[in-house]
């Protein structure tokens, strides 16, 4: 039997994500300079040997800052997406399998939240919670809940009337077991795909909040924060904006590449028949 052909875009996505994750993991050892140390070189120096991405207004090495920033940006994205996916998923599945009135109530509430842009909700929450790394993460996570609840609800509502779910009910399976053992495994693949695709928007939100000064606080090297710091030198030192911008772009792109084709890779129904 031939295995499924994996398209080159997926392979590229996987390769890039793996590379980014490895770089983020070994960043402290790989970085040529301490990302926080000032005046390791001249101020606002253009990219050159020794300072590959150039330096910022304090003479910090941008390459080291972008490299170490990967940890923060990806970390925030990962934590936020996990919280948002789990909480949204639980709400969605429960709503799909609850009675008519509860369902209507939850759905209308989600509709109201869903009508605001994620970032706006995150902004409002940070305004309420106060700026900072963990508050920004929590805010992003909460802002993602309506979307994932809605997606999960849709997926679970499709499964609910299927005969295999009804058969499990007839077997005497409890409500919680029905959801955990029967429904979740059948929708989890799609949810993971949605999570992978949402990962990029979480990273963007994190960068956005930091850019506005509401997320990670200076001098911590988060991508959005670096962007924010560089905006005053747009004409004099465009590399301060370009380098972290490119990092965000590449990371978002590679996660999207994987997300798009993830489903084909993990679906057991598509595995070669024996």
């Amino acid at each position, binding site marked *: *039997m*031939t295995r499924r*052909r994996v398209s080159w875009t997926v392979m590229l996505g996987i390769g890039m994500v793996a590379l980014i994750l490895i770089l983020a993991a070994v960043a402290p050892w790989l970085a040529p300079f301490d990302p926080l140390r000032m005046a390791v070189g001249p101020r606002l120096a253009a990219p050159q040997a020794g300072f590959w991405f150039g330096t910022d207004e304090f003479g910090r090495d941008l390459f080291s800052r972008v490299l170490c920033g990967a940890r923060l940006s990806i970390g925030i994205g990962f934590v936020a997406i996990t919280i948002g996916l789990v909480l949204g998923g639980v709400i969605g599945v429960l709503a799909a399998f609850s009675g008519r009135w509860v369902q209507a109530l939850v759905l209308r509430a989600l509709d109201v939240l869903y009508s605001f842009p994620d970032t706006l909700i995150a902004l409002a929450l940070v305004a309420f919670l106060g700026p900072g790394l963990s508050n920004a993460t929590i805010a992003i996570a909460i802002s993602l809940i309506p979307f994932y609840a809605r997606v999960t609800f849709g997926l679970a509502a499709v499964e609910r009337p299927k005969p295999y779910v009804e058969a499990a009910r007839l077997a005497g399976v409890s409500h919680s077991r029905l959801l955990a053992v029967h429904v979740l495994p059948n929708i989890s693949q799609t949810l993971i795909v949605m999570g992978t695709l949402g990962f990029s928007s979480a990273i963007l939100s994190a960068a956005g909040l930091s850019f506005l000064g509401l997320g990670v606080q200076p001098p911590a090297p988060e991508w959005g924060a670096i962007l924010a710091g560089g905006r005053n030198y747009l004409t004099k030192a465009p590399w301060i904006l370009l380098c972290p911008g490119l990092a965000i772009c590449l990371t978002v792109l590679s996660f999207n590449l994987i997300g798009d084709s993830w489903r084909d890779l993990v679906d057991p129904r598509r595995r*070669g028949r024996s």
Partner: protein
Amino acid sequence: MTGTASTDAAPGRAPFLTVDDLEVRIEAGGGGGLAVAGVSFALYPGEILALVGESGCGKSMTALAVMRLLPSPPARITRGTIRIEGTDVLGLGRRDLEDLRGRRIGMIFQEPMTSLNPVLSIGRQMSEGLRRHLRLGRAAVLARAEAALHDVGIVDPRRVMQQFPHQLSGGMRQRVMIAAALSLEPGVLIADEPTTALDVTVQAQVLDLLAGLRDQHGSGVLLITHDLGVVAETADRVAVMYAGHIVEAAPVAVALQAPAHPYTQGLIACHLEVTPTARPVGTVPPLLETIPGVVPPLHARPDGCPFRDRCRRAIDRCAQEMPPLASVGSNHAVACWKPFHD
């Protein structure tokens, strides 16, 4: 091929449709194979020829190949010829093919809903084909569509023409499909499981309609079905297919009363007739005759006769060579090394 000649209904008359040694291969990474493995038959005016078999026997693939509607890839015609009133269908270009479909050969499918466009009124859908193929004016097109709907037993064609597919019942939709196919007066109608999705009372009406086509318009109908009851009532000749081969071809009465192929015999034995048998509580019904096993999947068709693993009469030769479709009586051909004889 020997098969074609030996199963001609009326030698001397020119057939509408001849299929000779048709072979359709399906490519699927490691799981491909011959869906149609050398099928030959001829369809004459004024007869209903039934292609019968279970899922995977190649009957629908044969019909789609005749219409040149095979999904390609993965399916590909690798051998054979198909002629409709002398025209070589496989040699036609796209434009000629479009002229042929509908005009000279019509097709109706199992689920009429999927073959009707949900956002166009019935009148619009019917007139499209008429305008394209017959180049008639607006008034003539509408009159013709109306007449066609009337012909299939629709009492108020004008109202139906203004309706949309979802407003009609399944039986009405199938009538509309048949009317649309008939309005172009094609010589051949291919009906692929036309009544499988319909209720039994509606099925009876659609079958009457097909019989009417044959008897009143002299059309040739290729009826694809899995239901032997439908075959018995409607068809004139029957070709039983198994794993891509025609294994038996005969007039319906002969095939059903004196089947020569063990598979045909098995299908008939499995078929349940409505009989008033007393079934007192506490008793259980008698076991039905079955054909053990299942149709071998496309990629695992054995050499020799594909039915031999399920056949009680199999002999050594069955494993080595696929038997050719050979004559065993007038208009009766069978592909078996050890057929039943009277």
